[in-house]
């Protein structure tokens, strides 16, 4: 009995040890075997009609997006009977971590849905797949030119865009009107910082030294402060961290002007002094509960969220945001600074194409392009973009959307279209290493100093000097704007 127990214990122990080894299998070895539908992302030699599987890692782009995955897989297979689209769903929280892990292990999915600003990050790892020579003329011509440019780096094209979204501001229409703000004029013509500053001062409601409503609240906790500065400086003549002659732009005097204005809005009492701790969820709650007149950043889909909450309030539904009031969400442009023209901050997200450790075959590459185009155009793009209230950027998507009615505020729709026409252009000419240096400078110097500026622990001049010094250290005296 004693011996049997020992043998049994040994078997259990061995199983434990072997099961931990199972995770260490080398997926690249699969490439020596014939391709099968489960052979994810196989980079084997396959003919044009041979069976192949394309893998895609996709987050919940819209509320209905992930529910449509089985139908999307079925539709793709009906279109290309020899191809299988295998979609791996991921939450927004897990998306970056999952993708980063797979990229660094050398086995990324064929397609991943990410922001176009992530392209330079994965370019550094040499793990992106250039589809310039594989994307057909019809595919390329289906897209609006500006968003497609965002999917490029240098001369390479690294996927297809899904949408181009404007990062704007959002106002409570009732409060705007009470404050005497001609929001229709602002939507059409924009506003300067001085006009905006006066407007948000009028939106403040205080009693007994306590503020019950602020004029403007923007999420700035942690990394969201990057969005705040990024959106503002585009309208201060700096649409990109680099000028057209590749000099670092955030050392210009306009940058200092924006910093001074950021501080002025807090010192005026138009923004909370605790702004540095207000995250995206908190400021949206403040907007819906009437604690702020204007919020940022504002996305088109927020109109949809506000409408849904209004419906819940009307239906006396307990799942409405606690303490919320009915809000008519109004799209507003970001003010301009230092006399510069309006250049809306655009976010282009899309289906980026990756490669594995081994060079993909021409056939597999063509199949990945087919899958990426299928996801980023036509019916799939139309229904996803409608869910998000964002503009369609493909001719095929626009056509498919004709049969999908969307209830949207006409003024907001027109305001977004005006801003789309003024969107900051893509900068595929910025070399990857220069872009990576700018991102690090932003993360290690600009964002921390901005947090200190917003908290009132640093002056705009001190922050400007700190950024300038770090920029000169990084790019050299001649590599920055003077």
């Amino acid at each position, binding site marked *: 009995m004693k011996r049997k127990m*020992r043998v049994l214990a040994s078997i259990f122990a061995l199983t434990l040890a072997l099961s*931990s080894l199972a995770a260490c299998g080398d997926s690249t070895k699969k490439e020596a075997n014939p391709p099968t539908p489960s052979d994810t992302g196989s980079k084997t030699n396959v003919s044009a009609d041979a069976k192949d599987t394309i893998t895609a890692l996709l987050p919940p782009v819209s509320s209905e997006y992930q529910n449509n995955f089985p139908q999307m897989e079925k539709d793709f297979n009906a279109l290309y009977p020899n191809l299988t689209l295998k979609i791996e769903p991921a939450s927004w929280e897990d998306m970056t971590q999952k993708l980063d892990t797979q990229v660094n292990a050398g086995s990324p999915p064929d397609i991943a849905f990410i922001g176009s600003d992530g392209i330079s990050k994965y370019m550094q*790892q040499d793990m992106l797949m250039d589809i310039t020579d594989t994307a057909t003329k019809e595919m390329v011509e289906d897209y609006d030119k500006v968003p497609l440019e965002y999917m490029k780096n240098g001369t390479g094209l690294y996927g297809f865009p899904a949408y181009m979204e404007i990062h704007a501001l959002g106002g409570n229409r009732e409060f705007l009107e009470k404050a005497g703000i001609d929001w229709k004029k602002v939507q059409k013509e924009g506003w300067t910082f001085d006009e905006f500053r006066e407007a948000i001062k009028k939106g403040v409601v205080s009693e007994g030294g306590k503020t019950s409503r602020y004029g403007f609240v923007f999420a700035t906790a942690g990394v969201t402060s990057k969005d705040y500065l990024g959106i503002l400086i585009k309208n201060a003549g700096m649409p990109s961290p680099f000028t057209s002659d590749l000099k670092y732009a955030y050392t210009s005097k306009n940058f200092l002007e924006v910093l001074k204005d950021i501080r002025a809005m807090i010192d005026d009492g138009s923004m909370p002094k605790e702004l540095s701790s207000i995250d995206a969820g908190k400021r949206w709650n403040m907007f819906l509960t009437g604690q702020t007149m204007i919020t940022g950043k504002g996305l088109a889909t927020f109109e949809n969220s506000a409408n849904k909450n209004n419906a819940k309030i009307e239906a006396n539904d307990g799942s409405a945001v606690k303490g919320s009031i009915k809000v008519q969400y109004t799209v507003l442009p970001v003010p301009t600074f230092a006399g510069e023209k309006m250049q809306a901050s655009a976010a282009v997200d899309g289906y980026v194409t990756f490669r594995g450790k081994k060079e993909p075959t021409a056939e597999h590459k063509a199949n990945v392009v087919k899958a990426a185009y299928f996801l980023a155009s036509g019916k799939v793009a139309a229904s996803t973009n409608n869910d998000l209230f964002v503009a369609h950027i493909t001719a095929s998507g626009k056509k498919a959307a004709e049969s999908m009615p969307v209830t949207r505020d006409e003024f907001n729709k027109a305001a977004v279209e005006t801003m789309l026409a003024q969107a900051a252009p893509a900068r595929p000419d910025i070399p990857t290493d220069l872009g990576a240096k700018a991102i690090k400078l932003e993360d290690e110097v600009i*964002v*921390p100093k901005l*947090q200190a500026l917003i908290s009132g*622990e640093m002056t705009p001049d001190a922050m400007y000097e700190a950024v300038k010094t770090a920029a000169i250290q990084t790019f050299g005296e001649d590599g920055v704007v003077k």
Partner: protein
Amino acid sequence: MTQLAKPIKRRRIKGDGAWGYAFIAVALVIFAMFTAYPVVSAFIISFQKYKPLGSTFVGFDNYIVTFKDALFWKSVVNTVVYTLLTVPVGLFISFAVAIMILPLRKKLQTTFKAVYYLPAVASGVALSVVWLWIYDPLPSGIFNQLLNFFGISNQNWLGSSATAMFSLVLMAWLSSHGTSIIIYLAALLGIDDSYYEAAELDGASFMKKLWYIVIPCLKPTTLFLLVTGVIGSFQVFQNAYLMTGGGPDNATTMVGLLIFNNAFKYFEFGKAAAQSLILAAIIAGIALAQFKFLGNDVEY
């Protein structure tokens, strides 16, 4: 030959030593895979510029860059400050709670042990969300309501460099004592009653018994908790990552967070590996110093 071979084979199967080696082998394989291999791998990567398609050897560049990096040294200082504030106070709180629980009836003692251990079972992310709610910077925040009650204006707990580090320290003080309390309680129960009886005969007060019996008898336990506490504190990552992201102005950037950022945000695995090994060396140095200066008269 056959006759000679047989007894050897039998001895191998029947010998307790062989079974011992078999069982150790499992732990050894797991240790080799999940501890030794990553350490060796990190050592190699620390001399490379890592890329999935092929890394390049860069010599000591990653170490030189790290030693010249002001943010690295700032994060080391932050980590030391955090450790100095959390570990000794944390140990004192655990010890005090264990002393208070000790005289209670067994059922009540178990209840308290379970209550204090509960945060260790809860997910760190869930705890952080609760603490973020407590530290809400607006006047409606829990702590701010408490301050307002005493006529003090609301504080930007995590958003100001004056309070951000203290907020993380306070969070550590008020949670994660479960393991230490249980270890201290086990050690307290291990002290022979005859010591207390003799002290009582001599008319010793509670404080005298604490000073001359309890504290000396618990010295090995305290040393163990101190060493493991310092090691754990130097590796702190989760609190800063979830609560402050290292801000404001890097006031709460710890070495662990910096390593994470370099590896997974910027894909600078070589630099991150070099920083990890420097951190390991710092921790090893401190642990050795603790054993040398505090462990001389400890008997196990």
